[in-house]
């Protein structure tokens, strides 16, 4: 009896040998997001050196003549040509440059401003917190698009009055506007995280060792904010790129050389006749925004950051 029992238990032991641990592979979405963003960045940065990408203002002639939408998607122009006989594929790649640049710069600006505001509010609390919270809540309460429109128009006005604002072309106007818009959500999450960190024992320990406020913030709090900041910044980057497209759609886009929003608005009127001139740049925009969201979500799960704060 007991011998059988032993045999059985031995069998079970053999059968339930733990399977070999496999390294968890990131989800398909994340892999795609990575590949998409990296190849897009490489293509747009080195477009001039990549043979299959034409210049953005090269016109494709059919039978020696240019013409409106003279080529559909095909071998010559993979994504067809637009109203001015430009290659849609080449323009989509070139369009990424301005779009990504505006997105990244605005995010950096938002990170800097948002971190300063959020850390001050979260660490010092009290009146500082009250003031920062009011600013942030106001920014979040106003319709973002309306605020962006107002800001861009206002900057246009200012530029015509003050000559020293000459450097402020449309590109920088939009960057500054989006940077201001990105500040609010970042300040909010940094504030929440800082308030949590402030109560942690290692911060208390640093203070009991005689560290000054600045040192506590720089050495103890900021390094622990990095994951949250990166996560929100990546997700925010997607939103900003979409917002840039929306602004362009409303006629506040960067005119030259080319952006996705501009391509979409230009081709929209002839959507029935030449769908490719609108659908392809829109797809580029969509895939890029989705990729940033995928990465942001993945990071948020990795670092366990609550979505509510975003």
């Amino acid at each position: 009896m007991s011998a059988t029992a032993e045999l059985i238990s031995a069998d079970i032991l053999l059968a339930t040998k733990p399977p070999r641990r496999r390294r968890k592979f990131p989800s398909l979405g994340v892999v795609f997001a990575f590949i998409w963003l990296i190849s897009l960045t490489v293509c747009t940065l080195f477009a001039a050196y990549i043979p299959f990408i034409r210049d953005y203002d090269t016109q494709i002639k059919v039978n020696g003549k240019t013409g409106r939408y003279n080529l559909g998607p095909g071998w010559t122009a993979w994504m067809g040509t637009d109203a001015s006989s430009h290659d849609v594929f080449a323009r989509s790649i070139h369009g990424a440059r301005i779009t990504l640049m505006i997105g990244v710069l605005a995010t950096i600006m938002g990170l800097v401003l948002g971190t300063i505001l959020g850390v001050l509010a979260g660490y010092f609390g009290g009146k500082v917190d009250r003031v920062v919270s009011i600013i942030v809540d106001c920014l979040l309460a106003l319709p973002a698009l309306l605020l962006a429109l107002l800001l861009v128009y206002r900057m246009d006005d200012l530029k015509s009055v003050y000559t020293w604002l000459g450097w402020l072309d449309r590109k920088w106007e939009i960057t500054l506007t989006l940077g201001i818009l990105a500040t609010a959500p970042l300040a909010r999450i940094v504030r929440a995280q800082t308030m949590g960190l402030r109560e942690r024992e290692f911060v208390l320990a640093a203070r009991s060792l005689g560290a000054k406020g600045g040192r506590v913030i720089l050495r103890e709090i900021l390094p622990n904010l990095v994951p949250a900041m990166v996560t929100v910044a990546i997700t925010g980057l997607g939103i900003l790129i979409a917002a840039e497209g929306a602004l362009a759609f409303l006629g506040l886009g960067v005119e030259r050389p080319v952006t996705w929003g501009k391509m979409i608005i230009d081709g929209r009127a002839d959507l029935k006749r030449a769908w490719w001139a609108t659908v392809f740049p829109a797809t580029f925009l969509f895939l890029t925004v989705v990729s940033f969201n995928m990465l942001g979500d993945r990071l948020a799960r990795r670092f366990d950051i609550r979505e509510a704060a975003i």
Partner: protein
Amino acid sequence: MAGTGKAHLRTEDALLRVEDLVVRFPVGRTGLFVNAVSGISLDVLKGETLGLVGESGCGKSTTGRAIMQLPRPTSGSVMFEGRELTSMTGDTMREARTRMQMIFQDPISSLNPRRKVRDIVMEPLTIWKRGTVAERNARVDQVLEEVGIDPQRAAESQPHQFSGGQCQRISIARSLVLSPSLIICDEPVSALDVSVQAQVLNLLEDLKRQYGLTLIFIAHDLAVVKNISDRVAVMYLGKICEVAKSDDLYREPAHHYTNVLLNSIPVPDPEIAVQRTAIEGEIPSPVFPPAGCRFHTRCPGMQERCQNEEPQLREINTGHFVACHYPVHGGEAPVSIRTAGS
């Protein structure tokens, strides 16, 4: 259980003398307050270990932190090494704080997860720019070795690469680097395994002897406190119930609360019949503390007087103080004139 009395304060020059310490936190913007600590007085002589016990939420940790002025107490006086801390500000305060240090309950949370362990221990010396770089390095190596952490490993590892017990050792090392005179241990072993608890407690004892430290040992584990403390103060809902030499307190507890606490220590012998007076009910809200004796809502020996009159600390034996009208032994408290008149 008032503990508002100061009968238990000794006349000798104490290293730390806390009088009428009150800490209140506002509850949102309701205008209400959490009365975390409601007027307690303590003193600790040099080289002594004071145990501070009580159940969760009774204000033990808040007392420890208020002594460090983190956060500052609402009122009361904290005299440390002959200097009043509550009125200090700015750099004087920062400097005075370094003479006492704190060790926290959660060993992982006490160390910044994004820094190298060696830098964490070095931090106090860096802040105060003590000595040359070589001297700092030597000091850190020495302290790390004293607490049993390999300095080589500490130089290249982050806190999460160490176990809970090791993290607590690192915390101890950090608190020792500046050679403080007082260390406030806020439940330093509650989060550790029993076997590791013993190691850390022994380490604290050794270091205490070596550095001539004075300890305030906050805990809810009575067995731990018994072994390490010279004097024990029992707290309940922001007040002190009983203060006595460790042995006296454990041999003949006078306060009903202490009695119940001691009875609740599990006896590791199945042959011994269990006969205990279990404590009933929950700890009352510190926002609306009970009138009179704060323990009267749960006290097995409650009488009418306890509901109205707050008992004062009084001596029932040499060095044994209790704040109770009708203690387990030691006789009824004399009726105070104030209450008798009203």
